[in-house]
């Protein structure tokens, strides 16, 4: 296995693990922003000097610069996907709590319902 393959696979797993484990707090958000920043810098660099990316790619054993960029994108995409999933779950859970609270507060209190049911029988 190529060194770069090991690095990329480890990166994919790490991004997944970090995003799954951390509780979407400020640190989580900061990491996401740093990663995004790195991606932007790399993208700009590759546009300005396509040759440079190829040099880097060759140095780590990948044929072309575009391939290296593609691998980077795959990692970033997976990270974004997991992160979006986590955020959606957290939002859903808050919506559930709100809806449940409203439902229970607006419902006939169980003590009243109990009395009514027992009366009716």
């Amino acid at each position, binding site marked *: 296995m190529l060194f770069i393959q090991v690095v990329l696979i480890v990166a994919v797993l790490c991004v997944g693990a970090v995003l799954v484990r951390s509780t979407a707090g400020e640190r989580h958000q900061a990491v996401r922003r740093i990663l995004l920043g790195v991606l932007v810098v790399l993208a700009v660099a590759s546009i300005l000097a396509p040759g440079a990316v190829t040099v880097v790619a060759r140095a780590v054993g990948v044929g072309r610069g575009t391939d290296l960029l593609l691998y980077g994108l795959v990692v970033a995409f997976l990270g974004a996907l997991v992160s979006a999933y986590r955020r959606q779950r957290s939002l*859903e859970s808050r919506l559930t709590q709100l*809806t*449940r609270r409203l*439902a*229970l507060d607006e419902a006939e209190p*169980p003590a009243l*319902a109990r009395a009514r049911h*027992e009366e009716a*029988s």
Partner: protein
Amino acid sequence: MMGAVTSTPHRAEQGAPGEDPRAPAAARAGGHPGTWVVVPLYREAAVVADVVAELRTRFLHVVCVDDGSPDSSAALAEAAGATVVRHGVNLGQGAALQTGIEYALRDERMRSVVTFDADGQHRVEDAEAMVQRLEAEQLDAVFGSRFLDRRTELDRLRRAVLRAATVYNNATTGVRLTDAHNGLRVLSRRAASCLRLRHDRMAHATELVLQVGRADLRWAEHPVLVRYTDYSRSKGQSLLNSVNILVETILG
């Protein structure tokens, strides 16, 4: 509708288990005043009135948690004698169950909770037998199982998927059940107060078993008959949904 319950319900808590085993069930329990039947309800206008009416022949207290149904399910359930708790938006069956259980927990005289599907696939006599077993054996949870005997008829594919779900359930929760996805259960007050179902949709069945297992509660399985009518079949979960359940269970 309440014709079957002839005796006045006992106000006090039900007597010690096995107090008078010769008395008929309905008379001894008096409509099970310590039990709340929780029915998660979503778009079951066609059958919910019958299901609630049948439940009310044996159980005084039925609460339907309407999960934002766009049809008249909630009104029909209310007219049939159930108390209705309404979710403003649709959240899923797991969320509805948790809401119903929390509603029942607000009643300090509640001793047990029955969970019962709104589509008419469960039998009220099974639910009643399970409540009596919970009380008689002082259990914290009784899970209905359609696989303890051969009465329930299932097509081969559905049986295989349910078996696979059960194997997964047993491997991950440490609670060995024969039927992991049966909506008919009875929980003691203690078990009900241990539950925190976080999976809003269908992955709650495994989650519920897991939490019962972790809380170190006394539980048992009880054979029940699941009636697969054309209606419940058409409303039932598609088998593909088991993929969603698996993913939700794993990803948390």
